[in-house]
């Protein structure tokens, strides 16, 4: 049966603003399927974002939604979660928003291990402002501000999250649509700060500058570079050259922040 996305979409808000072939819509559908799988109550779910194309996502979803300032999603969301730990708090945003201007908030949310899920839609570019390079733009790639090729090295978002202390880190791609909801579901179920990086495409500002002839070519690249972690175990370093691991990359247990703060309240003699 066709999946009923309308259950979580705000009436009258579609079509969305994203360009033809942009994977953000595919990821939003994955998020909605995950929310449905977990039967998340709309009134008890906050979806928080920063600025950028991906950050427009909360406007479409019929929950408590908070579209904040550039890079600040994790910080605003931390306030919401602290005030109401019983709420499901999901963050969404792009790679520039999350790892450049929001980099500090991102790593500290990972460090605190506060029970929220952060979906980073990594399309390797600042799309909304017209295609300037981001910390996730590959070295050598063309962007509107790297006309001679990008001199900067790129972040590995998943490794950054793991290094900073996130207790669940997964990676998928917009091509592997079927996997997105499963990764997000597992991330939301995980107690602690979970990061799901979804490799995405920006045909409008990245693709056309970097010799991708079509959306399909960009999608096929995602298909080609992705290697599931299990499969990678049997591959040589040579075979893994240029590949990107997908699936659940990291999962550990560590005390969760709002639960730790509940203990602080207890020690201080305060009522819960």
């Amino acid at each position: 049966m066709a999946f009923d996305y309308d259950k979580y979409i705000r009436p009258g808000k579609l079509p969305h603003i994203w360009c033809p072939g942009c994977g953000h819509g595919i990821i939003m559908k994955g998020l909605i399927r995950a929310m449905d799988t977990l039967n998340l109550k709309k009134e008890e779910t906050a979806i928080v974002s920063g600025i950028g194309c991906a950050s427009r996502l909360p406007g479409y979803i019929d929950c408590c939604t908070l579209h904040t300032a550039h890079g600040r999603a994790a910080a605003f969301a931390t306030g919401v979660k602290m005030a109401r730990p019983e709420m499901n708090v999901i963050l969404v945003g792009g790679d520039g928003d999350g790892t450049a201007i929001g980099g500090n908030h991102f790593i500290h949310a990972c460090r605190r291990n506060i029970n929220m899920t952060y979906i980073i839609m990594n399309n390797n570019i600042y799309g909304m402002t017209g295609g300037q390079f981001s910390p996730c733009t590959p070295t050598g790639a063309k962007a509107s501000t790297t006309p001679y090729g990008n001199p900067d090295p790129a972040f590995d978002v998943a490794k950054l999250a793991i290094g900073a202390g996130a207790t669940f880190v997964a990676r998928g791609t917009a091509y592997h649509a079927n996997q997105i909801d499963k990764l997000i579901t597992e991330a939301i179920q995980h107690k602690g700060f979970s990061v799901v990086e979804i490799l995405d495409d920006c045909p409008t500002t990245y693709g056309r500058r970097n010799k991708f002839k079509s959306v399909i070519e960009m999608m096929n690249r995602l298909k080609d570079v992705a290697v599931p972690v299990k499969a990678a175990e049997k591959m040589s370093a040579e075979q893994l050259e240029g590949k990107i691991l997908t699936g659940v990359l990291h999962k550990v247990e560590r005390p969760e922040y709002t639960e730790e703060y509940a203990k602080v309240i207890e020690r201080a003699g305060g009522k819960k």
Partner: protein
Amino acid sequence: MSEEKKLPRIEIIEKYCKGCHICVEFCPKKVLEMKGFVASVKDLDACIKCMQCELRCPDFAIKVHAE
């Protein structure tokens, strides 16, 4: 067993479709085609109800109604 193959109904919401070609390209049975700027059903008989078009459509424009 003379059960007839039950065909799905593929609903394409034209006002949502942005014509990205993803559904057409990644349909394993080439059920869909582009008609002008929007996706359209070319060969419903070939549909195997794999739901890939619905799953991949970034624009919430395709619903595959199948039992």
